[in-house]
């Protein structure tokens, strides 16, 4: 069952504005199942999020999602992907930004732009080990500080180690 119709022209407009601002930091776009995904270079994410919030009305950060593409990702893919789900409530528009990072490669924290990112980034750090630079207090949110490993990585066993 699908939602109401996605306002494609309005989304395209927002995408065009973002591409104009971000330039070659936009690595690709995809539109499927009524949802727009914009792939960005990791260092351009914070500027894009701030731009979308200040000038395009995407004032709500719905969620940040971490993905593990596998310990040996395919050629050209990096290990982790971090997704940012942004929402423009006045226009009822959703946009998903995606940034790929390699193991050990940090991402800039967007807590300064959206306070709601605070615990979401801690959760991604806890479950995947992705480091967010500039986060005021980056530590595990669910597991004990002494816990070893990052459970949502594909090479971490379901029942845990030992």
């Amino acid at each position, binding site marked *: 069952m699908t939602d109401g119709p996605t306002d494609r022209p309005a989304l395209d407009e927002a995408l065009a504005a973002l591409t104009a601002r971000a330039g070659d930091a936009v690595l690709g776009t995809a539109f499927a199942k009524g949802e727009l995904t914009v792939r960005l270079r990791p260092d351009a994410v914070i500027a894009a999020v701030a731009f979308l919030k200040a000038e395009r009305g995407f004032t709500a950060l719905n969620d940040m999602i971490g993905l593990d593409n596998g310990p040996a990702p395919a050629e050209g893919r990096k290990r982790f992907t971090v997704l940012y789900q942004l929402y423009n409530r006045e226009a009822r528009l959703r946009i998903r930004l995606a940034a790929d990072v390699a193991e050990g490669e940090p991402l800039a924290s967007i807590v300064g732009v959206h306070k709601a990112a605070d615990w979401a980034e801690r959760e991604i750090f806890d479950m995947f080990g992705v480091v967010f630079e500039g986060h005021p207090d980056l530590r595990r949110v*669910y*597991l*004990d500080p002494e816990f070893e490993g990052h*459970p949502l990585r594909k090479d*971490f*066993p*379901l*029942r*845990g*180690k030992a």
Partner: protein
Amino acid sequence: MSSPLASPHRGTESSERSPFLLTKLDRFITWAQKNSFWPLGSGLACCAIEMIATAAARYDIARFGMELFRASPRQADLFIVAGTVTNKMAPIVKRLYEQMPDPKWVMAMGNCAICGGPFPTYSVLQGVDKVIPVDVYVAGCPPTPEGLLHGLITLQEKVAKTHPTQVMFKRHDRRTD
């Protein structure tokens, strides 16, 4: 003897040759104990809601004398482990149990407390009896209030068979057992 965690009253169910007066005293003491459990108000997850529903007006745990949920373990004698015990919560559950004075009983309510339930994962303790000894297991996900009451009645029957006077009047040092 049993593990250092087990209370001294465990293992007193079968007793040969107890004096007549002491058995009568046992019956009186266990009658008082089983009709006035004071549960520790410790709900961990979904089962806690059914525990509260059991204490509410329709299922009325007060008819069993158990409506007095205590917030402090020092005043409780029944630890109903209602919900999933995670590895992070396990030391706290153990400490709460140790803080309860004797005699005390433990009920594992729900599948998670019995064996980890539907969560065979890295963070869930597969059964609370890995850290504390359990007297009654009540299965269900969650058990209905009728199920919990059945578990409580089973616990009452278990308590009725113990012999508290054996613990009270023991002559030798308990620690040498």
